[in-house]
């Protein structure tokens, strides 16, 4: 009797979970394991036959000048995003929260770019960089604006950064605003009573209270920036040459544009996976420790 009931319970569980599991296995889990398997082969997508080549793809990737350059470029991009995006988002959140009725307006405006794809945003900024800025430079004589924002990698890095910040800051701002609203007013009032200025209150009362949100913000930025694709694709396409190529674009081109070397591209994709896993583990460890302290 007991066994039939437990059997029935398990059957019910499987019946409810089955559709979700089926799609998940077919389109997430299977491709993940498939990717690991293919990364050990010389599969090229065109030729149906392929051989197992062991770790050769990984070794080649570690010596691939363009792949290493894309890793370094991505790391630099991630670092800038991490600092600038979070700092800007916190600044905007604090200032917006301090406003009266205009609060809603500012929040609506700052979040708006998040609703748009960075492909759309990228084309709009392309217009700004290649048409509006040169025009403004011509009219005002402001030489700073008159750069090759898309064509020169020294400047296009900042063009990509500007586009990504434009598209991403509002999202984090919303999260920080939610956190700020959780800071009890009486704590700030007590600190003010004790003669603390606005900066001191922010540093010693507000900031510690929004640490959990900061962890989320850092995590989201890391995750999104390591996988950045749309902003670079729409603005520079990775060029000139491959000077602004990020990891995701390097993998994409290896697989689908230049060589169709699916096996080799899979190995690079697994390296990206490895990086994301390591970062997540570090992140979770830090989060756990914080929670214990708090």
């Amino acid at each position, binding site marked *: 009797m007991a066994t039939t009931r437990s059997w029935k319970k398990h059957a019910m569980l499987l019946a409810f979970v089955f559709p979700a599991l089926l799609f998940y296995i077919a389109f997430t*889990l*299977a491709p993940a394991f498939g990717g690991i398997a293919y990364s050990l082969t010389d599969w090229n997508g065109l030729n149906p036959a392929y051989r197992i080549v062991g770790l050769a793809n990984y070794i080649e990737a570690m010596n691939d000048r363009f792949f290493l350059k894309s890793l370094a470029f991505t790391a630099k991009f991630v670092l800038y995003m991490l600092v600038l995006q979070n700092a800007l988002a916190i600044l905007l959140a604090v200032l917006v929260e301090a406003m009266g009725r205009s609060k809603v307006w500012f929040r609506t405006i*700052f979040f708006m770019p998040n609703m748009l794809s960075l*492909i759309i945003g990228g*084309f709009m900024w392309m217009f700004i960089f290649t048409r509006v800025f040169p025009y403004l430079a011509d009219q005002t004589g402001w030489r700073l604006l008159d750069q090759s924002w898309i064509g020169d990698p020294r400047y296009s890095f900042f063009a990509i950064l500007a586009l990504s910040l434009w598209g991403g800051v509002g999202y984090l701002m919303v999260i920080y605003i939610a956190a700020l609203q959780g800071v009890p007013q009486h704590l700030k009032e007590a600190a003010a009573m004790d003669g603390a200025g606005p900066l001191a209150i922010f540093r010693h009362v507000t900031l510690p209270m929004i640490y959990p949100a900061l962890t989320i913000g850092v995590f989201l930025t890391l995750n999104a920036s390591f996988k950045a694709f749309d902003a670079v694709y729409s603005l520079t396409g990775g060029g000139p040459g491959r000077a602004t190529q990020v990891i995701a674009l390097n*993998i994409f081109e290896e697989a689908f544009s230049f060589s169709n070397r699916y096996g080799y591209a899979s190995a690079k994709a697994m390296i990206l996976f490895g990086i994301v896993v390591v970062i997540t583990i570090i992140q979770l460890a830090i989060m756990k420790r914080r929670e214990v302290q708090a």
Partner: protein
Amino acid sequence: MNRLGGRLGSWTALLFLLAAAVVTLFPIYMALLNSVKTQGEMLTNILALPSSLEVGNYADAFRKINYFRSLWNTFVVVAVGLAGIILFASMAGYKLSRTPGKLSGFLFGLLVMSTLIPFHSIMITLVKISKELRLQGSAVGLGLLYIGLGVAVAVFLYHGFVKSVPKELDEAAVIDGCGEFRLFFTVILPLLLPITATIAILNTLWMWNDFLLPLLILTDYKSYTLLLSTNMLFGEYNNDWSAILASLVLAMLPVIALYLALQKYILHGIAEGAIKA
């Protein structure tokens, strides 16, 4: 003194926010403004209001990106994906949350594991699989892929939310002789509405704005979404800014309209989704 400092501070804050708002809106404003100018006027005066409304740009863009078909395709992708994610994830999340035990824990762990996997790590094999299943080149096919990619996070969110729904409801319904599936669809699912709204918002935004997967899957131009059509237009006529800007405005229109109509729910959903996931 302190009072004066405070007032000065709030003026600086306001000015800073205004400047930031101008920077934020500038590209959108520029696109809108120049989308109704002729190429010639765009060259001579990019900042000024247009001397006459060049509506022809929009007619041109409408045709070049096949607006209604692209919009419909985008809509189909999102509708198929969303229906699958909400239906399957709510069922799974509910049952996993209500059934303790090893099997349940294992299945839940299996699903949650995937949140770590970056899309780029699976895309190559995913394209191969979708080719073999003949999902390539079809908006419905793309929607089905999104179910598999999005269902895990949604299960996680439902799983957490179900804990707040009293168990007594299930028991009472079972005593009344209500079958498990009927219980779920008539009693439980309506109670999950708040988290369903959050999940719907997050997933709609993701699928609507996702670019890379459609680029890989929608190989037939007849199945192009708004983003793909716009991208194609940009590639083909990359100096014809009149048509490009008009098509960008057309592509933005549905999202911005939705945002302004539902922004309270959207902002709430975003904050909640980020904190829970």
